[in-house]
C-alpha cells in the first residue's frame, strides 16, 4: 500500500493512499478511476466496554451475552458476513442477536446487492433506537483497510477485509474480555477463516443452532425458508436472431411474422396474429423475449407439450403492486441502482414466475418470440416511480399505456419529476435486464392538471393537435366569402350529366337537425310532395370539397388528421374553424354551397329515382333534435317546414322497418357523455341519452344517402371507390355473449344478422330491462371493427356491412369532420361531372394507403374520446361517493367485472381468496358463504375516487349488496369494436 505524504494536519487523518479501479459505464466505455482515500485513526469500535474508543462517543454494543450460546463462552459481538445479510436479513430482528457489528465494507456491499436487505439493515441500525447494532468504519481505518490492488476479486477483498477487521478487534478488545465472532454463510468460507488463524468463525446455522434459548427454532425456520438461494443468471433472455436468419426461417415456414399484441387483461400474456386467416398464437411469460406491444416479431411454435392457455386471470401490474408485500415490491420496482463500479450487473430479481401448466385439452398453440423484425416504439407518456434509495439515479418509469412495460431511466431530477407527467423513449432492451432501458425526453406538466392530462391523452393516442400552420391558414377563403352565382341554374333546368353547374335550391324548406350546441352543421334535409304524387326527399351535405382542393396545405393537413376528435371539454378540428363552423357549415338563413342527394320515392318509401348534384341552399332553420320533435308533435304548427319534418319522420320510420326486416342490428353502447360546465371545463353530470324519433329520422336518411352514394361511386369506379365495410365476426368471437345469454336461459342465434337481431329482441327479462341492454352491449364487444377499404381489393361479397345489413356502404354525410367523406365527395363529383377527379384517387394503391391511415386515426380518435370520458369520470368523482346499480359482466379466476351503467364505468373487483369463497370462472358464478352471484346479476356498489396513490387516482367500486370483501381496480375493458355507421 503506497502511502503518500500528508502535509495538512487534520484531526483523525493519518494516511493517504490512491486506489485505482476500472469500471464500465452504462454507455459501454471503460474508465479508470484513481481515487484518494484518507485513512483515519479516530474511528470508534462501538463497544461500550472499550475505554479507548469511549472518547468518540457513539458506543452502543454492550449487552452481556456470554451465556446465550454454547459455542462461545464469553461476551461476544457478532459480525455477520454480507452473504448472511443478503440471504437471512430477517433473522436479525430477533432479540437473540444482542450485539451485532456491521463493518463498513459489508454495509456497502449489501447496499449494492440487495435493496431489501439494505433497508432492513439501515432500519435496524439507524432508524429504530436500539443498542444492538453498530457500524464500524473499516474501509477508512488505517490498520484494517485492504486496498483492491492486493486482491484478485471483489469477494476476496471482502473476505480479507473481514479477516483483517476480526484480527484487529481481537487485539483491540483484549483488555475488555469481549471477542468478535464472525458468522459466514457457508462452510467453505468459515474454513478459510479458521485456516488463516481466526478461530471464532462459524456458519450462521451452527451459531443459531447452538443458541440456548428456545426461540432459536423460529430463527431456524426462517432461515430454512430463505435457503433456496436464487441464482441470478446474468443473461435472462434468449438472444434475438439476426435479420437473415429470421427471413430464412419465415421463408421455410419455421417462423411466422406478426404484430405482437399484449392482452389488456393480463400483462404476462400476448397474442400474435400469424396469417391472413387471423389464426393467433399465444405467448406467455419469458417467451416475450423483450418484445414490446406493437412490435412486428418473428415467432416460433413451441412443441405441443409446452402449449398452454390463458390463465383467465386478471393480471395487471398495478394490482400486483397493491397486493404483494412491501419488500417484494421494493425489490421489483427499485431494482438496485447499480453502482457502476462493481463490474457485475446488479439486477437481482427472481425472474418470471412460471406460467401454470394448463390442461392438455384446453391448451392452444403457444409460441415464443425469436426475433424482432420491426420495433414500433414511440415516445410514451407516464409518471416516474422514484427509487426508494435516496440519491439513486435509476428509476422506473410507469407509462399510462397499460400494455407497455415499465422502463428504467436514469435521471438525477427524480424529486422534481415525481409529480409530473413526463415523456420517455425506449432506447434498447438488453438481454440481462428485466426492463427496457430508456431516457427522459420532456415534461408535459403537473400531475392532475387538466391541461396536462388532456395533452397526455392526445399524445398517447397520436392525435395531431397543434394549431393550424400558416400554410394552412393561407389556404382559407376570406371571411366575407359569398357564393358565386355565375354557374347557378334553376332546379327545373337541371338535367343529368350537366357539368360544372349548381342547382339553386334556396326556396326549398331545407332545415338541419343537430345536437344542442353543434356548430359544424354538415347535413340538412327536406321533403316535399311532387306534382305527380310522389315524395321528393333530399339530403344536402356541406360542400367541403369546393374549398379544400387537392394539393393545398389544408388538404394535406386534413389527410393527416383524418377526423375531428371529440374530447369531453375540447374538440380538435380536422379543418380550420372558418370552414368547419362557418363557410361550410349549413347555418340557418345563410346561403351555402351543398352537395345534394335527392330521391323521388313512393309513399311506401320505394325509391324511384336518385339525383346527385351540387347545389346552393339556404337552410331555413338550424334545429335541435328536441326542437324538431316539438315541431313535429305540435299539431298547431302547419307551415311547410313542419310538414316537411313530419313527412321525413314518417318516411324514416318506413325505411327503418325495411332495414330491420333485412337484419340490421340495434346494439347498445356502454359509453356515456358528460354535460360540461364550460366555464370551469369540469363535468357537471351525465348526459341523458333519451332516444327520440328525430334521432332516427336523421339517422335513416343519412344511411340512405350513404348507401345511394356508395352505389353510384362503385358503378363509376369499381376498382378504386372508397367504401366502408363491416366484416362478419367469426363464430368463436360470439362465445362470451352466447354463454352469458345461455346462463340466463336465452338462446342467441348467429346464423345470420337477422337471426341474431331477432334472438336479441327475444332475450328480454320483464323484471329487469337492463338484461337486454347488457346483452346488446356484450354483443357489441364481439363485433369486428368497421373499416374503410378500396373497392377492387377484396371479393365483392366482402363489401357488405354486417351491422347495417347492407351489401354496400360508404361515408358521405360528414365531410367537415371526416376525411373519408371528402374523398367520397370528390369521387361523386367526378362521377357526375361536377368536378375533375384528382389523379391520386384513381390509383388503387393510394386509396388503400388512405384507408389504412383513416382506419388508424378513426380508432385512435375513438380511444381518445373514451379516455377523455374516463378522465372526466375521475374528476367528477372527486369528493363524491355514490351508491349505484351495477351488473356483473364477467367472472374471472380472481375477481369479477362490474359495469355501472349510469356512469359507464367498468371496473374489476379482485376478490380476496378465503376458505368459503368459491370462484368458478368456467360456469360464471361466485359463491361466498350463502350468497351466489351470477353473470348479468344486478348488484349494488359504492363508487368513489380512491386517491391513496396520489399519482394514480382510481375509481373504486365496493360490492355492497351482496357483500363480498374484495379489492377493486379500475380497468378499461371496453375493447368495444363498435359498429361504424
Amino acid at each position, binding site marked *: 500500500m503506497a502511502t503518500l505524504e500528508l502535509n495538512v494536519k487534520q484531526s483523525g487523518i493519518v494516511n493517504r493512499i*490512491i486506489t*485505482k*479501479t*476500472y*469500471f*464500465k459505464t452504462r454507455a*459501454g*466505455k*471503460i474508465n*479508470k478511476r*484513481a481515487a484518494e482515500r484518507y485513512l483515519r485513526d479516530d474511528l470508534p469500535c462501538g463497544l461500550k466496554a472499550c475505554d479507548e474508543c469511549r472518547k468518540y462517543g457513539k458506543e452502543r454494543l454492550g449487552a452481556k451475552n456470554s451465556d446465550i450460546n454454547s459455542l462461545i463462552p464469553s461476551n461476544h459481538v457478532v459480525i455477520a458476513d454480507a452473504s448472511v445479510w443478503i440471504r437471512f436479513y430477517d433473522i436479525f430482528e430477533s432479540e437473540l442477536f444482542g450485539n451485532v457489528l456491521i463493518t463498513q465494507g459489508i454495509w456497502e456491499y449489501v447496499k449494492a446487492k440487495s435493496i431489501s436487505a439494505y433497508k432492513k439493515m439501515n432500519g435496524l441500525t439507524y432508524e429504530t433506537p436500539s443498542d444492538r447494532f453498530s457500524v464500524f468504519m473499516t474501509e477508512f481505518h488505517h490498520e484494517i483497510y485492504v486496498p*483492491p*490492488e492486493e*486482491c*484478485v*476479486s*471483489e469477494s476476496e477483498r471482502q473476505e480479507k477485509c473481514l479477516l483483517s477487521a476480526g484480527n484487529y478487534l481481537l487485539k483491540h478488545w483484549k483488555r475488555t474480555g469481549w471477542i468478535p465472532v464472525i458468522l459466514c454463510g457457508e462452510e467453505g468460507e468459515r474454513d478459510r477463516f479458521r485456516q488463516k488463524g481466526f478461530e471464532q468463525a462459524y456458519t450462521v446455522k451452527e451459531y443459531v443452532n447452538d443458541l440456548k434459548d428456545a426461540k432459536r427454532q423460529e430463527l431456524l425456520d426462517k432461515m430454512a425458508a430463505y435457503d433456496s438461494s436464487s441464482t441470478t443468471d446474468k*443473461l435472462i433472455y434468449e*438472444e*434475438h*436472431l*439476426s*435479420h437473415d436468419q429470421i427471413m430464412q426461417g419465415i421463408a421455410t415456414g419455421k417462423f411466422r411474422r406478426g404484430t405482437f399484441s399484449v392482452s389488456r387483461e393480463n400483462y404476462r400474456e400476448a397474442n400474435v396474429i400469424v396469417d391472413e386467416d387471423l389464426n393467433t398464437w399465444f405467448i406467455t411469460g419469458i417467451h416475450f423475449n423483450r418484445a414490446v406491444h406493437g412490435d412486428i416479431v418473428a415467432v416460433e411454435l413451441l412443441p405441443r407439450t409446452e402449449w398452454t392457455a390463458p390463465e383467465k386471470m386478471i393480471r395487471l401490474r398495478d394490482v400486483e403492486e397493491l397486493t404483494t408485500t412491501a419488500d417484494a415490491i421494493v425489490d421489483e420496482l427499485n431494482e438496485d441502482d447499480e453502482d457502476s463500479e462493481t*463490474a457485475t450487473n446488479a439486477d437481482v430479481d427472481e425472474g418470471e414466475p412460471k406460467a401454470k401448466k394448463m390442461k392438455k385439452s384446453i391448451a392452444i398453440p403457444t409460441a415464443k418470440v425469436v*426475433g424482432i423484425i420491426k420495433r414500433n416504439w414511440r415516445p410514451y407518456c407516464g409518471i416516474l416511480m422514484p427509487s426508494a434509495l435516496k440519491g439513486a439515479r435509476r428509476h422506473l418509469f410507469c407509462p399510462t399505456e397499460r400494455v407497455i412495460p415499465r422502463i428504467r431511466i436514469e435521471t438525477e431530477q427524480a424529486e422534481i419529476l415525481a409529480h409530473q407527467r413526463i415523456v420517455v423513449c425506449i432506447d434498447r432492451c*438488453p*438481454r440481462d435486464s428485466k426492463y427496457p432501458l430508456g431516457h427522459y425526453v420532456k415534461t408535459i406538466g403537473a400531475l392532475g392538471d387538466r391541461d396536462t392530462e388532456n395533452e397526455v391523452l392526445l399524445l398517447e393516442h397520436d392525435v395531431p393537435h397543434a394549431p393550424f400552420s400558416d400554410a394552412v391558414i393561407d389556404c382559407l377563403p376570406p371571411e366575407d366569402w359569398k357564393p358565386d352565382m355565375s354557374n347557378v341554374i334553376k332546379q327545373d333546368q337541371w338535367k343529368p350529366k350537366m357539368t360544372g353547374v349548381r342547382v339553386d335550391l334556396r326556396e326549398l324548406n331545407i332545415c338541419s337537425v343537430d345536437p344542442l350546441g353543434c356548430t359544424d352543421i354538415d347535413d340538412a334535409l327536406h321533403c316535399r310532395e311532387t306534382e305527380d304524387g310522389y315524395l321528393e326527399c333530399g339530403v344536402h351535405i356541406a360542400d367541403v370539397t369546393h374549398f379544400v382542393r387537392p394539393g393545398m396545405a389544408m388538404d394535406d393537413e386534413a389527410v393527416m388528421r383524418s377526423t375531428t376528435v371529440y374530447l369531453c371539454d375540447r374538440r380538435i378540428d380536422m379543418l380550420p374553424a372558418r370552414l368547419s363552423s362557418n363557410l361550410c357549415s349549413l347555418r340557418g338563413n345563410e346561403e351555402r354551397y351543398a352537395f345534394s342527394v335527392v330521391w323521388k320515392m313512393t309513399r311506401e318509401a320505394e325509391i324511384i329515382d336518385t339525383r346527385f348534384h351540387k347545389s346552393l341552399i339556404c337552410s331555413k332553420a338550424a334545429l335541435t333534435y328536441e326542437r324538431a320533435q316539438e315541431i313535429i308533435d305540435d299539431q298547431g304548427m302547419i307551415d311547410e317546414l313542419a310538414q316537411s319534418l313530419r313527412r321525413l319522420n314518417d318516411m324514416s320510420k318506413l325505411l327503418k322497418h325495411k332495414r330491420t326486416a333485412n337484419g340490421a342490428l340495434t346494439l347498445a353502447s356502454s359509453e356515456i357523455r358528460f354535460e360540461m360546465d364550460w366555464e370551469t371545463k369540469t363535468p357537471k353530470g351525465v348526459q341523458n341519452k333519451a332516444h327520440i324519433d328525430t334521432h332516427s329520422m336523421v339517422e335513416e336518411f343519412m344511411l340512405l344517402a350513404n348507401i345511394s352514394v356508395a352505389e353510384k361511386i362503385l358503378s363509376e369506379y369499381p376498382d378504386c371507390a372508397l367504401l366502408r365495410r363491416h366484416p362478419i365476426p367469426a363464430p368463436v368471437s360470439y362465445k362470451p355473449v352466447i354463454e352469458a345469454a345461455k346462463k340466463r336461459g336465452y338462446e342467441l342465434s348467429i346464423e345470420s344478422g337477422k337471426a341474431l337481431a331477432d334472438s336479441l329482441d327475444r332475450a328480454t327479462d320483464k323484471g329487469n330491462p337492463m338484461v337486454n341492454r347488457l346483452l346488446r352491449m356484450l354483443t357489441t364487444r364481439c363485433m369486428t371493427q368497421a373499416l374503410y377499404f378500396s373497392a377492387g381489393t377484396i371479393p365483392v361479397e366482402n363489401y357488405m356491412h354486417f351491422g347495417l345489413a347492407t351489401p354496400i356502404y360508404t361515408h358521405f354525410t360528414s365531410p367537415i369532420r371526416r376525411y373519408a367523406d371528402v374523398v367520397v365527395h370528390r369521387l361523386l363529383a367526378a362521377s357526375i361531372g361536377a368536378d375533375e377527379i384528382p389523379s391520386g384517387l384513381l390509383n388503387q394503391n393510394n386509396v388503400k394507403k388512405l384507408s389504412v391511415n383513416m382506419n388508424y386515426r378513426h380508432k385512435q380518435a375513438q380511444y381518445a374520446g373514451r379516455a377523455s370520458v374516463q378522465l372526466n369520470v375521475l374528476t367528477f368523482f372527486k369528493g363524491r361517493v355514490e351508491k349505484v346499480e351495477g351488473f356483473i359482466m364477467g367472472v374471472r379466476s380472481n375477481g369479477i367485472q362490474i359495469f355501472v351503467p349510469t356512469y359507464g364505468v367498468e371496473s374489476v373487483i379482485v376478490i380476496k381468496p378465503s376458505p368459503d369463497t368459491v370462484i368458478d370462472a368456467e360456469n360464471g358464478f361466485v359463491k361466498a358463504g350463502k350468497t351466489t352471484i351470477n353473470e348479468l346479476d344486478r348488484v349494488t356498489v359504492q363508487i368513489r375516487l380512491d386517491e391513496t396513490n396520489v399519482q394514480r387516482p382510481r375509481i373504486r367500486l365496493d360490492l355492497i349488496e351482496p357483500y363480498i370483501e374484495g379489492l377493486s381496480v379500475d380497468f378499461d375493458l371496453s375493447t368495444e369494436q363498435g359498429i361504424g355507421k
Partner: protein
Amino acid sequence: MQTQAVETERRMIRDAEKETDMENRLSDGEKVFIISGAEADYRVDGRRCEDFRNIMVESGVIDTTDGSARVRFATTDLLVGVKCELQSVENSAAVQDRIRFSVDCSANATPQFEGKGGNEFADEIACALRTAYSNDYVVPDFEKLAVSPSHVWILHVDIVILQYGGSIIEAASIGAIAALTDTNICEVETKPADENRVTVEMSEMGKVWNLDTTRFPVIVSVNKLGKANVVDCSLNEETCIRSAVCFGFSFSNKMKPQNLYQVVQFDELSRLM
C-alpha cells in the same frame, strides 16, 4: 524629414519585434559564435555535435490516465498521457488509426503559445508522430487492439509541452514510447448479444495487459548549423539553424531505419521562436 523617416522606420521595427516578442532574439554576433563553434565541434554548453543533453524520463506520473510519462531534456519539459477508449464501431477492421496523437503547447512554456499561438507547431509534431506510427511494422499488437468485429481500443496519446527548450520532437517521441509502455489496457471479454453481435464485458478485477513497444519509433532530428550536423539543439541553437531533417527509427534485430519526416525550412523554425 530624414530623422522623421528614420524614426518611423525604427518604430516599425520595434513594433514588428514586439509582435513576435523575441525572447530569443540573438544578435548576429551571437549567431556567428554559435555557428562557428558548431563547425569546430564545440557547442556553447560544452557538448560535441553528436552529444545529447541529459534525458530524464519518468513514467506513471499521472493517476487519471492509463499510462503517462514525463520527459526532460534540460530545459525541455513534456508531459505525455495516454487514455484508452473502447469504441463501438461498425467494422473494427476499417479503423486504421488506433493510436492517435495530439499535442498541446501550454502557455506555461512561453506566452507566445497563449490561445491558438502554438497550434500550428503542435499540429506539426502530432503529424510527425502519426506518420511514424502509421506503419505495419512498428505496432505488432495492432490486431490485438481490435477486441471484436465491432469494438476496438483507441489509444489517445496526448502531449503537453510545459517547457520549450528545443528538441521537442525527440522528447515527444521518447515520451510517447515511455507512456505507451506504461499503459495498462483493461482485459475484456466478449459475450454474445442479439443479432450476432457481441457485447464487451470486463474480466475480473483489474486485469490488464501492456503493449509490446519494442518496435515503437524514435524520432531524431539532425540540424544544419552552418556546415556542421548537430543533434539536440538548445533554444539558442535552433534560432541559427538553416534546415533540419527528422528521421524516425524503429529498432528490431536488424537496424532498419524508416524515413518518415521531411525537411523543415529555416524560416519556419525562426518564425516559431
